[in-house]
């Protein structure tokens, strides 16, 4: 083909330009460390990189959530451990108070110590996190979870938050509970099931009480009717056959019959009565509505009785039985909650591990797609550099070749 002079210049300039463009591109890849500078370099790869980047960012956020929730759960565990230790001490004191050989000042001393433990537990139930939020107040975390009002008609220490709990997302599919509400952990504790005598026609009815708490609890759980209160009224009728018969007043059903000797104690469904009775006599009683008390409230009640020297021994024994059942039920709730926190911590930890593995996998696959292979890129750079140098060096030689130089 015939080559015109301008073609020689054009051709040379074009190849220098092309070489420079390639060189700049490779230089850019080397400088940024990325193979894909614009999406058009590798459209499929660029889209994949975006998806992987999202996944990595999301996993990083999950790991931050995980750190937060682990901290919060560990704090809650510490609170519950402290409460358990204090309650165990309080329980020992309550048992000691019931031994019957203690003098009034001794009981007062125990009462005073129980008061301190009560205040300590009350304080722990109102624990605040680092942000100043009350841990156990539910959604209304700016308000104190439990309030102490000695003049209140019901419980002096009562829950004033709500049942709200918050959740934190630890992976795409799993959220775990990060807080617990104080009602469920501390306040939703049943106190001892009891009954009250409402009327009788017998003589010398003395100290009707629950002597076999387990039997009575079974009976109570099976028969207490929160809807129709008449079904909670019972009557014991003394029969001519020397037996005591327990009848439900509401339904008329005969519940149980036991042998009876006048003036001797008899136990029916875990309840013990002692009375002088003849055939036809009756005792009416009804099941008390179940009450819920926090352990602080339970300690508050027993401590007040211990501090009161006018209380007789029967009432003291009742109060001690009440508080022991209340503390045991409360400890059961707390150990349930500790088990729940432990399992949540385990889940958080294993989620952390699997998220970490996934993050590493995503990062390595993102790196494989978008990162430059330095060995390849630098040898490519050297090659392009040589080509450009050759183009630059040959240009003057080619352009200097002219017939005019020879004529």
């Amino acid at each position, binding site marked *: 083909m*015939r080559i015109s002079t301008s073609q020689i210049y054009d051709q040379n300039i074009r190849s220098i330009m092309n070489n420079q463009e390639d060189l700049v591109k490779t230089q850019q890849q080397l400088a940024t460390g990325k193979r894909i500078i614009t*999406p058009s370099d590798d*459209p499929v790869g660029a889209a994949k990189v975006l998806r992987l980047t999202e996944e990595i960012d999301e996993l990083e956020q999950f790991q931050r959530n995980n750190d937060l929730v682990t901290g919060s759960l560990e704090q809650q565990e510490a609170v519950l451990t402290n409460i358990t230790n204090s309650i165990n001490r309080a329980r020992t004191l309550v048992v000691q108070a019931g031994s019957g050989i203690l003098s009034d000042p001794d009981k007062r001393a125990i009462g005073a110590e129980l008061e301190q433990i009560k205040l300590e537990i009350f304080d722990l139930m109102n624990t605040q996190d680092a942000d100043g*939020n009350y841990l156990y107040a539910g*959604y209304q975390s*700016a308000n104190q979870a439990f309030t102490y009002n000695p003049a209140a008609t019901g419980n002096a220490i009562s829950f004033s938050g709500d*049942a709200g709990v918050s*959740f934190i997302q630890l992976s795409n599919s799993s959220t775990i509970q990060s807080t617990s509400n104080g009602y469920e952990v501390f306040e939703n504790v049943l106190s001892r099931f009891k009954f009250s005598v409402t009327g009788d026609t017998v003589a010398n009815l003395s100290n009707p009480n629950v002597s076999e708490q387990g039997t009575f609890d079974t009976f109570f759980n099976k028969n207490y009717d929160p809807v129709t209160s008449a079904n909670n009224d019972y009557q014991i009728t003394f029969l001519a056959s020397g037996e005591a018969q327990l009848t439900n007043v509401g339904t008329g059903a005969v519940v149980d019959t036991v042998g009876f000797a006048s003036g001797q104690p008899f136990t029916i469904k875990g309840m013990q009565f002692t009375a002088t009775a003849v055939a036809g006599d009756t005792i009416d009683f009804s099941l008390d509505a179940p009450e819920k008390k926090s352990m602080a409230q339970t300690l508050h009640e027993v401590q007040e009785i211990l501090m009161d020297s006018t209380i007789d021994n029967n009432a003291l024994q009742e109060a001690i039985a009440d508080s022991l059942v209340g503390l045991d039920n409360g400890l059961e709730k707390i150990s349930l909650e500790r088990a729940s926190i432990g399992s949540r911590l385990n889940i958080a930890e294993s989620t952390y591990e699997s998220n970490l593995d996934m993050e590493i996998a995503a990062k390595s696959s993102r790196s494989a797609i978008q990162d430059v292979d330095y060995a390849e890129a630098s040898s490519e750079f050297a090659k392009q550099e040589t080509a450009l140098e050759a183009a630059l060096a040959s240009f003057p030689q080619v352009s200097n070749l002219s*017939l005019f130089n020879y004529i």
Partner: protein
Amino acid sequence: MTTGFNELPGGIEVEFSGTDTYAEGYQFLLQPTKNAASSITLASNRPEDLAFASPIRAQADSTNLGSANVSGVEVSNTTVGDSAFDGAGGLISSAPAQIYFTSEDTYRVLNASGTTLATVTGTTNLDSLLTQAGLSAANGYDFSLDGVPKAGDSFSISYNTDGFNDNTNTLALASLQNEPLVQVSSESSNTPRTFQDAYASMVGRIGEDTAMANVSLESAEAMKVQSENWFESVSGVSLDEEAANLIKYQQSYAAAARILSTAQELFNTILQSAR
């Protein structure tokens, strides 16, 4: 053209209303996102103003003997006048405020003043209790329980006043990340995708288009070079060629001149011999 949705390239659809007429030559300028960025303003700089909490909370009453607990609260509508929300931080008085179980599978829904709004008997699950009572749609909220309720248990629903620690809405907001919400094309068979997936596909598509344009540019460039070469080859000036021609013509000039001078010499010789 029939009325309805008419697909345009780029996924925008324009609907002409049936009665308005339009004629050939009419032009429509669509700038749907022209002012979108400039009208973004900061509406609040108090984090407490962000509605991270659910407007409703439900809880078991303290006298409950069963093990049922609230497992979830759903809010579907908070429009004042169209739901139970009064717009002033509360619920209207006729809204469901309490659920009372008269047996394990029978419950009554009561309002704040204790009037029974509905009774549900023989329920088999404790999900969406207000929907089961037919009261959810009109009030805009609902809740579910798990566990086993006992007769006499009740659950109360109230406005979530002071609910600072509630992050229900935030979790719902965060879960949008994995919800398929973006319809990438107007074909109904096309399944929606997540935000990030749609964005990544868009970037991929633009990258493909750019790569394709680059290839076209390169081939056009090559064709242009080819044509230029042909053009130059035929009509361009080669200095070497011209130089060669110059020499050639110079030589012929010299040769012609030489002929002239030779002829002149011949004539002179003839003329001198004849003198």
